[in-house]
């Protein structure tokens, strides 16, 4: 290897590592504070190392129940978004329904309005009229509706980039279009679905406003709301407990990411393009 090329590779590696480190810095605090019984906002190595913060957090039944609620809502929403978006995106890509070209863009714009807080009122009224207030289903349906346009947009691009010859050859061999979808297309678009699954899980898992507006009883509240029970009477964070709970609350998304990237490889596979 010539010297300039080697030099270039070292420079590239150093730069990449530096950027990576810069991204890690704001999170560093979370690696230490949960294990420090006297943690404050400053960065400090726990001395002594302790799990007492976690013990206190595990003793908060409301907050523990909330993690389970988050899981119900996120998994429910993900299944609904994943299934509905896959079917719809496939139809938009492979059928000749009139106006399908514009529809995803228009929905994307609509959803940008609805994601603003102004639409919380009609959504509240719809859920209330349907008698779904204070249920997990209310949260699941609302998220599914709100996330679908973007999910369809991403997934449609992905399916468009897959050659039609896959399904065509299956159909030449006698498969029906629906069979071609399930047996041939679905396995090919799986990486795209994985991206949608992770993306919608992360969105639902972290969201505060929708559950806050649609739920009432503490038995149904997700972790994003329950985390506020680690604020003091005056509204200041109880740093030690907040850090410990935040770590527990973050683990599922990190685990999901690691699992998906190990099992499927978490990437877009050249899928998305306009």
């Amino acid at each position, binding site marked *: 290897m010539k010297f300039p090329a080697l030099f270039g590779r070292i420079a590239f590696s150093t730069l990449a590592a530096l950027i990576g480190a810069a991204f890690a810095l704001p999170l560093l605090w979370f690696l230490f504070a949960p294990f420090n019984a006297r943690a404050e906002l400053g960065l400090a190595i726990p001395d002594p190392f302790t799990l007492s913060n976690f013990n206190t957090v595990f003793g908060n039944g409301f907050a523990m129940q909330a993690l389970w609620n988050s899981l119900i809502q996120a998994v429910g929403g993900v299944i609904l978004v994943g299934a509905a978006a896959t079917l719809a995106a496939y139809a938009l890509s492979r059928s000749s329904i009139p106006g399908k070209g514009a529809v995803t863009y228009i929905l994307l714009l609509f959803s940008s309005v609805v994601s603003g807080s102004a639409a919380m009122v009609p959504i509240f*009224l719809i859920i*209330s009229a349907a008698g779904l207030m204070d249920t997990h289903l209310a949260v699941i349906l609302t998220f599914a509706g709100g996330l679908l346009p973007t999910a369809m947009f991403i997934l449609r691009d992905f399916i468009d980039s897959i050659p039609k010859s896959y399904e065509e050859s299956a159909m030449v061999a006698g498969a029906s279009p629906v069979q071609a979808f399930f047996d041939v297309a679905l396995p090919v678009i799986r990486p795209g679905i994985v991206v949608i699954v992770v993306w919608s899980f992360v969105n639902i898992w972290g969201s505060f406003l929708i559950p806050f*507006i649609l739920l*009432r009883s*503490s038995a149904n509240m997700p972790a994003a709301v329950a985390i*506020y*029970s680690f604020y003091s*009477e*005056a509204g*200041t964070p109880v740093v030690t407990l907040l850090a410990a709970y935040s770590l527990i609350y973050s683990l599922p998304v990190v685990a999901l990411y690691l699992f998906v990237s190990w099992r499927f490889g978490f990437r877009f596979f050249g899928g998305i393009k306009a």
Partner: protein
Amino acid sequence: MSNRLRALALGLVGATAMAAPAFAVDLDVTCRCVIGGVNSATAEWIENSVIPAFEAANPGVNVRLNQFGGEDAQLTQQLALDFSTGAGPDVSAFDGFLIPSFVEGGLLKSLDEVAGAEVNDWSGWDALSEGSRALMLYDGKYYGIPLGTDVRMIHTRKDILAEAGIDADTWQPTSWEELLDAARAIKAIKPDSFPLQINAGVAMGEATTMQGYWLLLLGTGESVIDENGKFIVESQGILDTLNLYKTVYVDEKLGDQRAQLLADGRNRSFANFRDGVTALLLEGDYFYRSVTPEGSEFAVANRDEVQGWAKVPAQEPGKGIRGQDFVTISGGTGFVLNPNTDSPAEAWAFLSFMNEPEQLSAFQALQPRITARTDVEIPDSPFLTETSQTLLPLTTARPNDPNYNAVSSEIQRMTEAVVSGELSPEEAMAQYKASVTAIVGADNVVSLL
């Protein structure tokens, strides 16, 4: 009917009765209170005293307390949305100043409209003090029962005043200048301290308006609204008030500017007082009751020795509202009934039950406060007895105006523009004028300049 069948039938009746006793009624009560969290005493009182006693006296009624741990504004949102759709708790804690806008929005009904004429026969009405009665009153009708009222004063750190050579036990400023002089004396010996705290800015919300701006404005002889109900948008009083803010936070740095601007500023101001960084702090009796007691987050060490209080002076003696030398302002909270409750009679029974002297005394035992009822003693709290006797006769109430909330936000903005040094008092007032006019209309504002 055979015996076996009869037994089965009886068993079925018994089983349903077990699941839901005949005429069983479920009541939901909500307050911004969490045992061990925010307003813990209120939650403990309702959960451990009111509910057991009420259920014992009213068999068949099950009462459940929803402890709401979010912010005040979030509870307001939930209640407004719930009341507009017929959902929500049967009885809820409520801040008096929101009543006009809820009533005008059709979200609250007067108590007798909800629960019938027997409401007016309740013996407790006559026991309410004049001032507190107005807290839950709108257009001559009661919308709830007030639980308590409050007054505002200067909380002092006697140890720090003493260090600056001021006799803390007798210190009582009679003008703004004397207040500033005390702060300057402290600043002189402790250059890094921020002796004076007068709430300002957006982040503190209503605490800016009630604990800061109002207390100064009343001292100039003015109010937010004139006697005809019009909002005053230009006046010498507003300018003087803003100039005092400017002196404190911009010109002489007598106050902690950061605490007015940052999102968690109010807690920073409490911490300043706890740590002796601030010696003079304008707040309600709430500050003494809930913020600084032993064991709380902002507990002042050795409180009985070092924490005192003084009246808020008018700008000059005799220049305050109604010609007063000293001023204060009161707000208050209480409980209201859901206008769409399924069990109005039981809800009213619960509401009046919790406001009987017996239950209120139980509350006083948990946390002494200034009660709305004159026949309930404040036990063993010289501070509350003394301040309420001195200040209640001087007090003023917030205007009963549906637009007050929106105007209050503009007040917070105006003070923030001044304390951040971004606008001059004149410019900030001009902006206030434009914004308030846009909210209430040009017919409802008046200029005193």
